[in-house]
């Protein structure tokens, strides 16, 4: 069971990546933990968690950073929405 991560809009552009799949990193139990893990990659990844008004969804529901995540989940990071 892999963890699927999606990046949209300006977040996708800043990271130069739209999605990835990886095994659930050891010790990661929530969105905040995943952001900490990604920051270790350095470069743009280090600043992901600091993006102003960064939004996140787990399994296609908007959540806070304390939302739990586990293997098989789909996590997404994106800026505030601007449709309509």
């Amino acid at each position, binding site marked *: 069971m892999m963890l699927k991560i999606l990046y*949209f*809009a300006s977040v996708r552009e800043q990271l130069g990546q739209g999605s990835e799949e990886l095994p659930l990193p050891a010790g990661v139990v929530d969105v905040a933990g995943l952001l900490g893990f990604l920051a270790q990659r350095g470069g743009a990844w280090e600043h992901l968690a600091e993006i102003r008004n960064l939004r996140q*969804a787990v399994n*296609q529901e908007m959540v806070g950073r304390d939302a739990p995540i586990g293997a098989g989940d789909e996590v997404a990071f*994106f*800026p505030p*929405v*601007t*449709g309509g």
Partner: protein
Amino acid sequence: MMVRVQEADFDVGSELAALRRDRPQIGALVSFVGVVRAASDGAGVSEMTLEHYPGMTEKALAAMVGEAGRRWKLIDAIVIHRVGRLLPGDQIVLVAVAGAHRGEAFAACEFLIDYLKTRAPFWKREVTPQGARWVAARASDDQAAERWRD
């Protein structure tokens, strides 16, 4: 209740006609159409690209329509939102609500577009003479959505 995300344009007349068809209890039909403006925040806009989160977008829109149906006595509602490349004057979104009476149809239609603007995962990128830019979320949209809090 119907939700669609599509690249193709939509025909407002046909969609409203379909919404009304064989529904003799409908007395009021309120609709909102959002259109790409040729200028935005003081800059000319030559084109726009709408990105979305496939899967979550449809779920978010369906959830909003369901919520509108719980809050107001509606007969039916549709939301159609386009994605991909759009030009000034192009239609972006249609929200249409049918009810027996106008008060609930107006409220539900405005609720749906306010919620869509703050909760449905779409992102606009517009091309101006100064280059391409992601459209910034508006505080006025957050305030509009906030009015509908229980």
